[in-house]
């Protein structure tokens, strides 16, 4: 990781009611870096992303975006600070058309902290990225297939021109064709200069897109290193990811 991190998480703890899920998590994501968050079901991957986004009620520790603390801010402030969140269960507005879904996510273009313009998105640019979506702008969200919804939920978040993208299990429950589409999208985000923190169970997908990896177990980081190292280390895979 080069330079100051875009996202720096220190000692993150989070709970659902009385049940604590995260126990002092540390992680960082650099500029233009794709970081994978791996681990078994219930390890705390989704909770980590939700905590960064301000969607968890009880959170302790520190979360900094470009050095500014965002812990305790409401989700809309965190989104406006440049964090884009793509939920695991897509959460498309079923009664709104595809175009209207995109419009809900719309925000003005933003700049990096040094003042240079950051990548910005329009529906047209997103239809280039996801040609399928361009064919059905007037279709209701509820009438779209799972794969189309998965693309729409990413596109909707990109409409906010985020600097850091939080992707929660983008390969889960979609056809292999869509998984490839998602992997291509993540690589394009990286090329555009965005930082991506992606939670993933699929080792192949993570290997394809990520630069580095954190493996969680019971709410703590158990392994961290370059993604290529984990991909080559059958022992570590068996220890942390095997079932």
């Amino acid at each position, binding site marked *: 990781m080069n330079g100051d991190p875009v996202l720096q998480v220190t000692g993150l703890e989070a709970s659902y009611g009385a049940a604590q899920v995260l126990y002092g998590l540390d992680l960082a994501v650099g500029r233009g870096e794709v970081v994978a968050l791996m681990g078994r079901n219930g390890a705390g991957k989704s909770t980590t992303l939700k905590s960064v986004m301000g969607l968890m*009620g009880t959170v302790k520790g520190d979360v900094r975006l470009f050095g500014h603390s965002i812990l305790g801010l409401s989700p*809309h402030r965190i*989104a406006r600070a440049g964090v884009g969140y793509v939920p695991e269960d897509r*959460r498309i507005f*079923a009664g709104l058309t595809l175009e209207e879904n995109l419009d809900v996510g719309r925000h003005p273009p933003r700049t990096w902290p040094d003042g240079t313009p950051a990548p910005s998105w329009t529906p047209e640019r997103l239809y280039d990225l996801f040609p399928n979506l361009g064919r059905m702008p007037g279709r209701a969200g509820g009438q779209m297939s799972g794969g189309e919804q998965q693309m729409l939920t990413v596109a909707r*978040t990109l409409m*906010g021109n985020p600097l850091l993208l939080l992707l929660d299990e983008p390969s889960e429950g979609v056809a292999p064709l869509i998984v490839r589409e998602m992997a291509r999208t993540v690589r394009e985000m990286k090329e555009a200069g965005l930082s991506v923190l992606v939670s993933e169970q699929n080792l192949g997908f993570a290997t394809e897109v990520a630069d580095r990896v954190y493996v969680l177990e019971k709410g703590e980081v158990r392994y961290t290193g370059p993604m290529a190292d984990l991909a080559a280390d059958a022992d570590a895979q068996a220890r942390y990811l095997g079932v």
Partner: protein
Amino acid sequence: MSLEALLFQGLNGLAQASTLFMVAAGLSLVFGVTRIVNLAHGSFMMLGLYAAWTLATSLGGALGFWGGIVVAALGVGLLGAVLEVAILRRLYRAPELFQLLSTFAILLVLNDLALFLWGPEDLLGPRAPGLSGAVTILDRRFPSYDLFLIAAGPLVLLALHLVVTRSRFGRLIRAATEDREMVGALGVNQALLFTAVFALAAALAGLGGALQLPRQPATLTLDLEVIADAFVVTVVGGMGSLPGAFLAAILIAEIKALCIAIGQVSVFGVALNLSKFTLVAEFVVMAVVLIVRPYGLLGRPPVHVREGGEPEAPLRPAGTPARIAAVAVLACLAALPLAATGSPYTLVLATDILIAVLFAASLHFIMGPAGLHSFGHAAYFGLGAYATAIAVTRLGLPMGPAMLIAPTAGGAGAALFGWFSVRLSGVYLAMLTLAFAQIVWSILYQWEGLTGGSNGIFGAWPAAPFDSRAGFYLLALGVTVAGLLALRTALFSPFGYAMRAGRDSPLRAEAIGIGVFRVHWLAFILAGVFAGLAGALFAFAKGSVSPEIASIAESVDGLAMVLLGGVHSLLGPIVGASVFTWLSDTVSRTTDYWRAALGGIILLIVLVQPGGIMGGVGALGRHLRRARP
């Protein structure tokens, strides 16, 4: 009656429908976006009418009238925004029922505000400048202002429709109606959106009220009347559907108008006065619609409602210290007649409190552990009280059998209404129970031969040895404690576990063999039985019954008691009913503005201690235990 007269009344109904639609549309928007059932929404209509009256009479002329209507609507919209920011905003994460309780408190405060500003007299506004004449339709004179009103409804519908479908504000409203958390995660300021929607809704209600200026006098009872109508319209049309609200407003207003028009009819030789039917017609329509189409005429089942509420801690049986404390309290209560010989009123108030406790506990039984939020629990209380009073005065039964008839009547009513109601959930269940309670109320109110109509029944006095204050107090104590123990025993039996399982996860409960409908239906009946028993005590305590005891206000009082005490605690209804009854008694004897005082106290409790009184006590206990080394 002639066809012309019928059509004429139909036109009248359309003029009424416009205002009804404007109020209901706002209610529906607010519910969709914030999930708050705003009981104070009718107050906005009432305040709009009062404000328009003041502006029209003080400024005078066309400017005072028409400008006054606009200013009144905007002013009420502003008031809505202020209330949202000052109170409701703090409650979006609170359980649904607390929001409800606080909107009820706002209703009380606003009602007394109107009493303070405008006094108790009815105020009728001037005729509309420019539209004071009438046009001849079907050989009758029809006010031109009413024609204007008939046109205003569809115009507002069109404007709202354009806003909701074409503007970004409308897109955000629709998106937030589906999933407000996701809208926030996409960078939309929810607080601002909620305030805007609330202000828009309040302004619409204010406009609806102000437009009635030449047709309807401003009175202090409008808030509850209008909110009941608006709920019916929203639910019949389908929560969240603006065209549905419009259709339902016309339907309800027309049915009411036609009942008045037809008047006396004769069915198989029995004379029926249909104009009296107006009081209940809308609730009959609502009950039928909810049974046939549970999500209203044009409504859709909610896609997925995300609740931020935390899971509820399981109820635990009382430990030995709690049992000892309960026996000690009981002993003190039994000794109260000895201590209170100097002040007979103490025993009267204590008896009232005991009756309220039994009533609230029976409501809590289905609200808490079964999650069935009944808005019409007073119906079963009323049925019990009337059954007893009728048994004593008309049938001449002795006190014992008369008291046993009450739980039978309450249970039978609950069995009939519950069979339809417990299939629904959330707001729809609340509204269907409310509708049934209104039907009971109007039967009690109108069946003069049996129930004495609005006067009620007098002369249901207890027999010896319960005919003294102390004797009756001890009877009430015994019955209430026995009722509480019975309800408690049911809760900690396998039946009670099944109730709670059915509340927490109906599908999983079904999957392990629990018939959720049957269990909840039985719970509903049981709650009706004990509410009926409380009603019997009430009848004997007062010696009389009147229709008010089955009214919306009585049902809402029950809700307020349960919520005040805390819905998640078994002591909650006991503490809540005691505090509520004592407070309303004390406050109403010290000030004319007792509603505002009561509302203020409720708001304070809800804002400072959203878990209710017992929630606060529980949190304090946990804190003390943790602090102990």
